[in-house]
C-alpha cells in the first residue's frame, strides 16, 4: 500500500512540474516572446510596435498584450492546406519533429533552487528531471532538431524549401561541434555534468563569469577564478554564437531569410504547422538562453552569492525562480537586439566561421583551461 502511495506521489510531482513549467510558463513565454520581438525591434527602429490589441470588443488596449492571443486564434482558425505535390507523411511529421526536441530539453533545466512549501516537510527540487548527465542529454536531444528542418525541406518537394533545408542542416551540424566543445571548460572547472550541482556551485562560489562573492561587505575572490575568466569569456562568446546558429537566428538565418529563399524550409506550410515551426524556433531560443544562463551566468542564483537556495525559506525559493526567469528574459532581449543590429552572414562565410575559426578556438580553449587548472592545482 505504501509503495502504491509513493509511486503515485512520485508521479504526481513531476506531472505538476511539467504542466506548470511547460504549459503555464514556457508556452506563454514563447507566444509573448514573439510580441516582445515585435515591440522591442520597433523601439530599436524608432517606431511603435503592436499597441492596440487588448481586451476584445472594448477599447481597453493593454499596450497590445492581447496580440499573441489574436495571433494564436488566427493560426488555429486558418485553413490548413496540404499541397498536392508534397510527401504527405514527412510533411505532417516535420513540424512536430521541430517543436518536440526543443520542448523536451527543458526537462533538465534548473529553474529554481528548492521550494519549501509550508505544510510539506521536504523541499521540492525545481527541476523536472535531476539527471546526472544533464548536459549530455541536452546535446543529444537538441541534435534531433535538425531532423525536423531537413524533413520539412525535403518533403515540400519544391526548390526553395529544399535549398533552405540543405543550408540549415549543414549549418546546424557544423555549429553543434563548437557548441559542445565550448561547454567542456565549464565541465572541467565544476567537475560535474549535473546542471543542478553546477548552479549550486556557482551559487556558493560566485558565477562563472562573475566569480566574486560578498562576505559582509567585503568582496572575496581568488586568483584561480580570475585567471579562469579568460577561457570562460572565450567559451561564452563561442557558446552564444553557436546558439544563434543552432536556432537559425540572425546573423545566421540564411536558411529562412526572405530575400534569398521565399521563406526557406517552411514555405509550403500554412496555419498550425507554420505556427509550430515558428514557435519551435522561439522555444529553442528561450531554452537555449536558459542553458546559457545556467552554465555561465549562475542559473537561479543572485549575484555575489546573496540569498539562499530555498531549502529553508519559501521566500528565497521564489526569489531564485524569479531571478532565473529575469535572466532568461534579459537574454531573449539580447537575442532580439542582435537580430536587428547585424547583417546576415553569407553561406560560405558562415561555414568558414564554424569550421575554421570556432572549432580551432574551442579546442585551444580546452587546452588553455586545462593548463590554468593545472597551474592552480
Amino acid at each position, binding site marked *: 500500500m505504501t509503495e502504491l502511495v509513493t509511486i503515485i506521489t512520485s508521479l504526481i510531482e513531476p506531472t505538476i512540474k511539467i504542466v506548470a513549467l511547460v504549459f503555464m510558463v514556457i508556452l506563454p513565454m514563447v507566444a509573448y516572446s514573439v510580441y516582445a520581438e515585435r515591440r*522591442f525591434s520597433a*523601439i530599436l527602429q*524608432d517606431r*511603435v510596435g503592436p499597441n492596440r490589441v487588448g481586451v476584445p470588443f472594448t477599447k481597453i488596449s493593454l499596450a497590445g498584450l492581447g496580440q499573441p492571443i489574436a495571433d494564436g486564434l488566427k493560426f488555429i482558425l486558418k485553413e490548413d492546406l496540404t499541397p498536392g505535390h508534397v510527401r504527405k507523411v514527412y510533411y505532417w511529421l516535420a513540424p512536430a519533429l521541430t517543436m518536440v526536441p526543443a520542448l523536451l530539453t527543458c526537462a533538465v533545466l534548473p529553474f529554481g533552487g528548492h521550494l519549501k512549501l509550508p505544510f510539506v516537510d521536504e523541499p521540492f527540487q525545481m527541476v523536472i528531471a535531476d539527471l546526472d548527465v544533464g548536459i549530455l542529454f541536452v546535446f543529444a536531444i537538441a541534435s534531433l532538431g535538425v531532423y525536423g528542418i531537413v524533413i520539412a525541406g525535403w518533403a515540400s518537394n519544391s526548390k526553395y524549401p529544399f535549398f533552405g533545408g540543405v543550408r540549415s542542416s549543414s549549418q546546424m551540424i557544423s555549429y553543434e561541434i563548437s557548441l559542445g566543445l565550448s561547454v567542456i571548460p565549464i565541465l572541467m572547472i565544476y567537475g560535474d555534468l549535473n546542471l543542478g550541482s553546477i548552479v549550486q556551485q556557482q551559487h556558493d562560489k560566485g558565477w562563472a563569469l562573475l566569480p566574486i562573492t560578498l562576505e559582509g561587505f567585503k568582496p572575496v575572490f581568488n586568483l584561480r577564478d580570475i585567471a579562469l575568466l579568460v577561457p570562460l569569456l572565450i567559451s561564452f562568446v563561442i557558446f552564444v554564437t553557436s546558439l544563434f546558429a543552432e536556432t537559425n537566428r540572425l546573423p545566421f538565418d540564411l536558411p529562412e531569410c526572405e530575400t534569398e529563399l521565399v521563406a526557406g524550409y517552411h514555405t509550403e506550410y500554412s496555419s498550425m504547422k507554420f505556427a509550430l515551426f515558428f514557435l519551435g524556433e522561439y522555444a529553442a531560443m528561450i531554452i537555449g538562453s536558459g542553458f546559457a544562463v545556467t552554465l555561465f551566468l549562475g542559473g537561479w542564483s543572485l549575484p555575489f552569492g546573496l540569498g539562499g537556495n530555498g531549502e529553508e525559506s519559501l521566500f528565497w525559493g521564489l526569489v531564485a525562480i524569479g531571478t532565473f526567469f529575469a535572466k532568461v528574459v534579459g537574454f531573449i532581449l539580447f537575442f532580439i*537586439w*542582435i537580430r536587428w*543590429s*547585424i547583417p546576415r552572414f553569407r553561406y560560405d562565410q558562415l561555414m568558414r566561421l564554424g569550421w575554421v575559426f570556432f572549432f580551432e578556438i574551442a579546442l585551444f580553449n580546452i587546452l588553455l583551461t586545462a593548463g590554468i587548472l593545472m597551474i592552480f592545482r
Partner: protein
Amino acid sequence: MAIVVKRPKLSIFEKMYLPGIVKGLWITLSHAIKMLLGRSKKVTMQYPEEKWDEELPEYYRGAPALVTDEQGRERCVSCQLCEFICPPRAIKIIPDEIEKGNTWEKVEKRPAEFDIDMIRCIYCGMCEEVCPEQAIYLRQDYAITGESREEMVHDKAKLYEIGGVRVGLVNKWNELK
C-alpha cells in the same frame, strides 16, 4: 573587358568582426534608449486618432466624382472616353439623348446611367486626365467603405452628390455660337 573591383583595405580592428559588431549594437541601443526615455520622435502615426487630412497635397488622388457647373447643368456628356481608358474597367456608362425642348438640347447627349465600382477603382486619375468636358474629378477622400459589394458601386446620383458644383471651368456650351 574585365573590371577588377578593388576590395577595401581593412584595418586590424575591422578584420576581427567583434569590434564592428559591438559598434553596431551600440548604435541600436542608443536608439532604443532614446525612444524609451521619450527623447525621440516616433515615426509611426496612430491612425484613427491622428490623421493627416490637413496635410494632404492638392493633387492627392482620392475617390472620383462628377461635377455640375454654375448653371446646374451636368457637365458629363457620356462620351465614354473615361470608360475606355479606365485600366480596371470600373466605369460603366449608358448614354442617353437630351430630348428636344430642353434648355441644353444643343449638347445632345447625357448619361442615363454612370456607375463607378469603387472596389475596382485604382485611383489612378486617368479618367480625370482624359475627360474633354472637365466633368470628372478625383476628390481628397480616401476612406471609402461599405458592407456589401452593391453598396460599393457609386451610381450617378451618388457621384453628383459627392462631386457638387465646381466653378471657374471652361464653359464651351454656354457661348452663343
